């Protein structure tokens, strides 16, 4: 069914999760994941971890004085 073993899947897992795998690689990876419980769980874990990292590290807001300073700098004749 799938020509990949688990190690080969792991090597390509992140590219797949990043949406960077081409169509044929995607279908091979999906076939392996469908057949292999440990890889399915690992993939789910990586996907959730990535979401948590985004959630925890994003959402900064620039301080208002910086915003004001930028506008002021842009008003200066160059």
């Amino acid at each position, binding site marked *: 069914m799938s020509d990949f073993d688990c190690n080969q899947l792991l090597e390509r897992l992140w590219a797949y999760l990043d949406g960077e795998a081409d169509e044929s690689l995607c279908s091979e990876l999906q076939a392996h994941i469908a057949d292999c419980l440990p890889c399915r769980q*690992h993939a789910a*874990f990586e996907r959730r*971890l990535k979401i948590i990292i*985004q959630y925890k590290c994003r959402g900064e*807001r620039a301080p208002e004085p910086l915003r004001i300073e930028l506008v002021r700098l842009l008003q200066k004749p*160059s």
Partner: protein
Amino acid sequence: MGAISVTPDHPMTVEAEDRARFEALVSEHLDSLYGSALRLTRNRAAAEDLIQDTFLKAWRSFHTFQAGTNARAWLYKILMNAYIDSYRRSSREPEMVDHEDVGDFYLYAKAQESDQYRRAGDPEEVLLSQIMDADVKSALEQVPEPFRAAVILADLEEFSYREIAEILGIPIGTVMSRLYRGRRHLQKLLWDYAKRAGYVNGKGTEDKGGAKTGSPTKGTS
């Protein structure tokens, strides 16, 4: 300010129009650029300097920017160039060396292999909920360069590999290897956090050879 002449027929000069377009870009992308600058420089004052530098450079070359092209990637390219320049210039900032061997470190496998996590029933759930409580920002900031930049651009900013290659001026293969290594580092750092936090009363997750005696909930009898 001399460039702005308000007349009934031409309310704005070309420069004022440019300025208005540029200010719109600033307000649209400032927060995300500032967030990345903060994760890159690891300090608010340096992040603010970097952002000012970035937008001044962007404004100076704004006439070369083609409307309708990827403004976000264009701004990030300027940000990363300014960051790398200032990083190289400041000798106070010690060059981070990637000593640590993070070879094949997988957080998932670590949770699976750990007796403590297995005893908790659902190792992945326990570990992920610990990471929800962990200081992930500070872990990310400890990932050495140039790997950290790749992780920030891919995982926080969700640029494609091709865009990251363009932003950093490196081949896609290099993007992938930096990203691979950066994520390994980050997972290792998160694992260190999780071990320190412990899953039961902050005890019992030492992974030292002979220290696995007794369950963390049991005291010495």
